[in-house]
């Protein structure tokens, strides 16, 4: 078989610009405008790959994105992309491509020995063969089969390219830039987008096409519309730089196109004919043969046999004849005037009522065995076969929203049926009349006849599927894997449906198709990620004191999207040493910690207090102005949702705080309560989390320190500003601030809020005044010492009773969650309830997540009595402590319990205690 470059012609190539490239390490030259496929063909390279299962030699079948055989690894290193269709690769200087799935080489692939063992690899083989002995599957069979199967290799390195994502809007999206699409775009009004997967418009046209009148159209070439989604949304992918040797611009752009209307002008895909060895290199679709000759002046060979069942493929006759390629014979199932006329003009013999039995050859076609009308066989010499079984409209996009194509008996193909909303179909995508005589299984050869080339599915597999009862098209697909490769069965589906219909005595119309799904052709995952990779996967929220904290050597921890200072290590300190020092500084002197991240919601209006009654379990209308109160919020199903403090700054103004994690959720909940449940209440509220920097100042010296910061006009003595007081003040000579006497640490403590732009300055001022910076680690240790529930205890599965807060549930008013919180199952004391734990040996570190069991109980789930929620190594108490939920917990104080942590090899005894380890009377709070 010899393929070669014709001396003249080639509408898309520029012979003045030669391009050097390599394939499997060998250097070749092509021209600008070539695809990798056409350049290889022109260089007499027809063997391009080895098939998936049987490792049969494969070459080009097509000239388009439906190509199932010519899959190569393109580029190298981190850029290596497997399963790239050579037909869609635009040749560029220095291109390197490698064939796939062969060892040691394409010509001598040891695994092609599979052909002899083929019966063991029929459809569904992994359910039937390689099953004994069972142990061999994991150790021997599966690894061997995995090594033998598969096509290309992914790079296994981070994708070095960048990708863009954008949205476009239009009145009309025209999908496909062939003759029909160009005409539709020309005539469309408003904003028009015309997209085509090829680098130039023209579609199947073999000569220049009129592209005038498109000035109002946004033309997107190298752009595949790969999916149809709800609401007039279309997914498209533009290959911006894949045709260049290297890129400084984004490689690809993912476009979400919102279109009021769409016109599908995606054309049609030619159907192969199913005969023996129809997968040999040199067996090609007739339309592809014409494309290679007209567009690229690449001739597939010197002598051809044409096998066709329709008038469209008849154009192949003059194409070959005018290119000086000999035609050994034209094989057709039925007579056609057009075929006879063209054959006569070319002086080529026609065999009517005949079929190809099988293609002959080893690594490429050397002849075709014809089965004549009278049953006689005849061998015709040739080095390629141009076949055409008809054309299948490219209707894939019409079924992405579950539209069902319909069988057209006259056209002998599926045409679009139900369409997505506001989509029309035009051109070849709607079906073309080509005087077709259907041939589903040609000849009677025993040689393998392929239906799905990429997944190596033959007629035998379809027969087997029918025998085993997998008759419906959905079962047929999954049992044989036909249509499940990266080409989604573009060249195999219709043949398969027809063969199964014939085998099971059904009509093709009754069989129907499977559902095509996005993407139409593969899309790199990087394109879907766009810029959202690595550190850019999610935004970072920085606290107002972040710069000061970073300059103070803080180590940061991610809390949702926030970065919070976790601890401030001094030279030589690890996290524990730093946190221990910080805790001691707070408990003995004074420290400060940024608590800006906790949600802050400013609630104002005549009904603000009434609104709080609706959302919190406890009472609010009786809260005095200038006081704060702890609040508990339930979900409507009665489980705890969030907690916080709420301060009354005025008759009609409250400042609510939430946990960091639930800030947005609580805001959404308040909006729901106001807009949906109680729209009659007169109030407004807004999130002010980012607007105020809030810093906790805690420790026995905290008042003394704040008296140097808060302007002297404000009296913050213990009498004037007692525990839970709240109010507006000014600091540092007039800066507005809010002061709240709240304590999370259990010490005398305050939280001071200033407009966020003063956050860094306030932190510096507090540090200069001698307060010790402390981070979330120390914050956590101290709140555990005080038995304060926080995130780990408010995990959405705990109730007020579980947390020892039953008395906060008002008996006098309705509130969110009131009704269902009183269900007996939610108040049962046998539920895991909050207690404290101290290791029996006062040394073993207890870990959150450990399970609690009676010491003599078996370590099985049925004996599980609870779990540790939070744990700390307490410098204040001098030993490890933990908070835990234990069945009937409060009644078991003093009991010894087993703390079981099999995943981390933990197993220790601990004593059940009151969860408030430190200052249970709370005297330090009121100091």
């Amino acid at each position, binding site marked *: 078989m010899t393929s070669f470059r014709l001396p003249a012609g080639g509408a898309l190539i520029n012979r003045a610009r030669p391009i050097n490239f390599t394939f499997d390490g060998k250097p070749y030259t092509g021209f600008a405008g070539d695809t990798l496929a056409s350049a290889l063909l022109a260089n007499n390279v027809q063997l391009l790959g080895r098939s998936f299962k049987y490792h049969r030699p494969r070459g080009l079948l097509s000239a388009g994105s439906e190509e199932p055989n010519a899959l190569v690894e393109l580029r190298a290193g981190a850029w290596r992309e497997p399963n790239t269709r050579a037909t869609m690769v635009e040749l560029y200087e220095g291109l390197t491509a490698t064939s796939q799935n062969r060892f040691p080489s394409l010509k001598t692939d040891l695994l092609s020995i599979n052909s002899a063992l083929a019966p063991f690899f029929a459809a569904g083989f992994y359910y039937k063969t390689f099953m004994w002995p069972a142990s061999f599957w994991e150790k021997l069979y599966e690894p061997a089969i995995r090594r033998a199967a598969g096509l290309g290799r992914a790079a296994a390195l981070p994708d070095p390219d960048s990708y863009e994502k954008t*949205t476009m809007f239009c009145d009309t999206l025209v999908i496909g830039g062939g003759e029909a699409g160009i005409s539709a775009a020309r005539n469309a009004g408003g904003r028009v987008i015309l997209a085509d997967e090829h680098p130039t418009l023209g579609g199947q046209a073999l000569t220049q096409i009129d592209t005038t009148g498109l000035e109002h159209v946004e033309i997107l070439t190298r752009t595949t519309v790969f999916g149809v*989604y*709800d*609401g007039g*949304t279309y997914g498209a992918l533009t290959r911006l730089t894949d045709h260049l040797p290297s890129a400084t611009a984004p490689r690809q752009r993912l476009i979400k196109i*919102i279109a009021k209307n769409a016109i599908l002008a995606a054309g049609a895909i030619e159907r192969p004919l199913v005969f023996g060895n129809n997968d040999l290199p040199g067996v090609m679709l007739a339309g592809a043969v014409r494309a290679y000759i007209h567009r690229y002046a690449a001739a597939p060979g010197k002598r051809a046999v044409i096998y066709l069942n329709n008038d469209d493929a008849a154009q192949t006759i003059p194409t070959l004849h005018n290119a000086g390629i000999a035609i050994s014979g034209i094989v057709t199932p039925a007579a056609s005037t057009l075929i006879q006329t063209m054959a006569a003009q070319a002086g080529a013999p026609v065999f009517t009522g005949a079929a190809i039995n099988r293609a002959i050859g080893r690594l490429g076609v050397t002849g075709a065995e014809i089965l004549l009308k009278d049953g006689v066989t005849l061998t015709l010499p040739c080095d390629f076969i141009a076949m055409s079984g008809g054309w299948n409209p490219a209707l894939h996009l019409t079924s992405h929203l579950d539209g069902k194509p319909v069988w057209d008996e006259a056209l002998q193909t599926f045409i679009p049926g139900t369409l997505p*909303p506001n989509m029309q179909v035009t051109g070849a995508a709607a079906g073309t009349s080509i005087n077709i005589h259907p041939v589903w299984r040609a000849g009677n050869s025993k040689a393998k006849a392929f239906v799905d080339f990429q997944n190596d599915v033959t007629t035998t597999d379809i027969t087997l599927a029918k025998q085993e009862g997998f008759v419906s098209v959905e079962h047929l697909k999954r049992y044989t894997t036909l249509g499940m490769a990266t080409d989604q069965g573009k060249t195999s589906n219709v043949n398969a449906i027809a063969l199964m219909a014939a085998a099971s005595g059904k009509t093709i119309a009754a069989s129907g198709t499977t559902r095509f799904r996005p993407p139409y052709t593969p899309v790199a995952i990087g394109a879907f990620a766009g810029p959202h990779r690595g550190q850019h996967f999610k935004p970072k929220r920085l606290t107002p004191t972040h710069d000061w904290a970073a300059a103070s050597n803080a180590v940061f921890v991610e809390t949702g999207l926030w970065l919070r200072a976790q601890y401030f290590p001094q030279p030589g300190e690890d996290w524990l040493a730093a946190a221990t020092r910080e805790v001691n500084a707070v408990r003995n002197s004074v420290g400060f910690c940024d608590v800006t991240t906790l949600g802050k919601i400013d609630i104002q209006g005549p009904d603000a207090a009434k609104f709080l009654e609706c959302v919190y379990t406890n009472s609010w209308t009786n809260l005095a102005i200038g006081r704060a109160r702890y609040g508990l919020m339930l979900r*409507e*199903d*009665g489980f705890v949702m969030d907690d916080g403090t709420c301060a009354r700054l005025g008759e009609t103004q409250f400042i609510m705080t939430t946990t960091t994690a639930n800030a*947005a959720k609580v*805001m*959404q909940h308040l*909006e*729901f309560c106001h*807009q*949906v*449940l109680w*729209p009659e209440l007169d109030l407004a509220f807004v999130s002010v989390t980012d607007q105020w920097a809030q810093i906790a100042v805690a420790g026995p010296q905290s008042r003394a320190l704040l008296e140097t910061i808060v302007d002297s006009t404000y009296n913050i003595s213990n009498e004037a500003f007692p525990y839970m007081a709240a109010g507006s003040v000014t600091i540092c000579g007039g800066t507005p601030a809010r002061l709240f006497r709240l304590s999370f640490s259990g010490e005398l403590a305050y939280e001071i809020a200033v407009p966020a732009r003063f956050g860094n300055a306030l932190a510096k001022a507090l540090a200069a005044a001698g307060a010790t910076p402390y981070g979330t680690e120390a914050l956590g240790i101290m709140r555990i010492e005080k038995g304060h529930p926080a995130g780990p205890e408010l995990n959405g599965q705990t109730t007020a009773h579980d947390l020892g807060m039953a008395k906060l549930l008002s008996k006098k*008013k*309705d*509130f969110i969650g*009131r*009704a*269902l919180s*009183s*269900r007996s199952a939610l108040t049962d004391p046998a539920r895991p309830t909050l207690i404290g734990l101290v290791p029996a040996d006062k040394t073993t570190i207890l870990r959150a997540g450990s399970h609690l069991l009676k010491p003599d109980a078996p370590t099985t789930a049925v004996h599980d009595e609870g779990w540790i929620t939070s744990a700390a190594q307490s410098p204040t108490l001098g030993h490890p402590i933990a908070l835990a939920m234990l069945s009937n917990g409060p009644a078991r104080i003093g009991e010894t319990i087993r703390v079981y942590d099999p995943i981390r090899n933990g197993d220790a005894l601990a004593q059940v205690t009151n969860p408030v380890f430190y200052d249970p009377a709370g005297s330090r709070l009121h100091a």
Partner: protein
Amino acid sequence: MRIPCPHCGSRSLQEFLYHGDATVQRPKDGGAAPTQAWTDYVYFRDNKNGPHQELWYHAAGCHAWLVVTRDLATHEILEARQV
């Protein structure tokens, strides 16, 4: 997919959070006891087909709660109004 927020205009679905059935009513009996009405309100929903009224929250926009009429079979959004 897009939702026509009455305040902000047609916006991408990504700006909204789905809540659930808009036709259920919170019982007005004060919630003193966990009656069947409350269990129905919190847990039970009809499994409907065709046009359906549901609550969406314009989380990344104006924070409005909207009653959106959406066809559960075709996903077409027929209307969106402030609750």
